[in-house]
């Protein structure tokens, strides 16, 4: 009995970690722009696909690019990864203030050197790569995860730039922006469908098939990774919004957008950062989800996205703790209902309960009427 309870709790934690990661993205964008980004569930789907192509490419299966693809394609891929490494290095060593009037060339030279070296290394490494052993695959996982997060956030930020920003500059009513978000979601779904057809891709196994025993209940490394990742991301996000200036600026925007430029803060940078954070977490969720439910299809983001959105609202949209807790709350409800009643009744009953919570507390569990949004 206890064993079953723990097993179900672990299942709920795993499910909740996807909901939470996605809900956090809804919450951030809503807090900053008062925009319900309905494309966010599909960003999650895009993340899963990116994770698929990144992992299979790195593993030398070349799903996207055939093994005899032109040298340029391989170089672009290598260059892209090198760019990430270079950016990370430049962030770590930070530019020292230089004397006025004197130009200091060592900094760009160092970064340029790193960039070229890493590009070359990856290029040659990629040539004869055949990743077979377990340790190799963990390496693939370690590379694919940040790559997925960055590429997914590029997609998210791109959508903001081309679809939402022009509307915002024209002062369009929020309703139009929300409708645009819905359309972007549909474009992503059917864009994917037309690009890749209805083929359901199956995700390669990256982490070793080790299963831990928790008081009789079983949990695989892959599941454990998903749970740990969501808690780590939440902690990181909490740190960002309370301790860093950009994070504080996000909270400031959510309270009073008007005064933010008066602090010398470019509003656009805050918005881009918000989409970057939200989409990279969706990308992470997409990859973790694909690793646990290894069949990908273009519409996988729709229902999960909707559920995460509801979770964010029930938690109190605009409060990251609310979004995080809301995701787990929904997962536990679903698992409990499925266990006590049946899985056909799962969504019906759990959403009825959520409806009850909202009726009792319309601002959500953590929401305060009006004042704060993040």
């Amino acid at each position: 009995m206890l064993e079953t309870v723990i097993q179900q709790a672990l299942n709920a934690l795993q499910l909740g970690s996807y909901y939470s990661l996605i809900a956090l993205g809804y919450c951030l964008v809503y807090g900053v722009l008062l925009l319900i980004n309905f494309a966010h569930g599909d960003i999650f789907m895009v993340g899963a696909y990116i994770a698929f192509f990144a992992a299979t490419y790195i593993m030398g299966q070349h799903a996207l690019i055939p093994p005899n693809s032109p040298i340029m394609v391989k170089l672009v891929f290598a260059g892209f990864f090198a760019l990430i490494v270079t950016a990370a290095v430049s962030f770590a060593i930070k530019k020292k203030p230089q004397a006025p009037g004197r130009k200091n060339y060592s900094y760009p030279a160092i970064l340029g050197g790193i960039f070229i070296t890493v590009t070359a290394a990856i290029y040659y490494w990629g040539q004869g790569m055949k990743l077979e052993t377990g340790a190799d695959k963990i390496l693939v996982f370690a590379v694919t995860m940040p790559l997925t997060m960055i590429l997914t956030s590029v997609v998210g930020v791109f959508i903001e730039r081309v679809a939402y920003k022009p509307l915002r500059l024209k002062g369009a009513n929020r309703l139009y922006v929300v409708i645009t978000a819905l359309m972007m979601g549909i474009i992503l779904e059917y864009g994917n469908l037309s690009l890749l057809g209805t083929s359901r891709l199956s995700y390669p196994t990256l982490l070793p098939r080790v299963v831990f025993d928790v008081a009789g209940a079983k949990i695989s490394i892959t599941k454990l990774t998903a749970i740990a990742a969501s808690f780590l991301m939440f902690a990181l996000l909490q740190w960002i919004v309370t301790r860093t200036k950009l994070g504080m600026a996000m909270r400031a925007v959510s309270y009073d957008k008007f005064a933010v430029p008066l602090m010398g803060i470019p509003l656009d940078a805050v918005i881009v950062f918000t989409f970057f954070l939200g989409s990279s977490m969706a990308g992470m969720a997409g990859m973790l989800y694909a690793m646990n439910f290894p069949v990908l299809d273009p519409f996988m983001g729709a229902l999960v996205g909707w559920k995460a959105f509801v979770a964010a609202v029930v938690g109190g949209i605009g409060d990251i703790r609310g979004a995080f807790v809301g995701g787990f709350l929904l997962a536990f409800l679903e698992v409990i209902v499925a266990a006590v009643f049946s899985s056909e009744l799962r969504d019906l009953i759990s959403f009825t309960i959520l409806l009850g919570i909202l009726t009792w507390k319309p601002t959500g569990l953590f929401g305060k009427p009006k004042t704060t949004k993040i």
Partner: protein
Amino acid sequence: MLSVTNLKVKYGNIEALHGVSFTVNKGEIVTLIGANGAGKTTTLLSIARLGPPEGPKVIQGDIAFDGASLLNMPAHLVVANLHMVLVPEGRHIFGNLSVMDNLTLATYARKDKENLPRDLDFVFELFPRLGERRKQRAESLSGGEQQMLAVSRALMSGAEFILLDEPSMGLAPLLMYDMFRSLKRLNQQGMTILLVEQNARLALDFAHRGYVLDTGRIVAEGPCDELRDNPEVKKAYLGG
């Protein structure tokens, strides 16, 4: 330092300023007085480059800082590069952040990080009540304290020129005089101030020079003592 020439601005299709010209020199306190709806806030928003959709759009004329037009400069660079900072009407403090976080956020674009501790000490010396409440959520401050915070934020962002929009609004008389004493002190230390006020008597006592704005036009200007004795100004703004 700042010169506004023949400025015309619109909100949508409605023209709110019909050719406003004035100057502010370094180290001066200049006031812009006028009745409600005269266009004072509109003028400051234009200078601070807070444009559409919420703000006004400049359609004619120029705003120049040290001789260079700033019409194409985004709002955050006016603060970061020119050190000209608006303390907006209604304060617009970030109520969900602590007092300290409000002040920290204002240093976002500062390049002279080494001066921050000195500036923070100065702010808490100028407004000791903020120092006592540095951990509180800014929302929980009284109106006067919020105004102090709004001014302090401008100081922390490295302002050398502040644009104040009705800093006396909603303050009890005692607090109001306190506030203006602090502002005077700032000016004595070299701060240039452009003050917008509905309370004309207070503004004319405080500033060196003034301009009177009426429905989007400057109708009188001069040193404050002259404006105080101007019969029209007396009648319209000083209650006879």
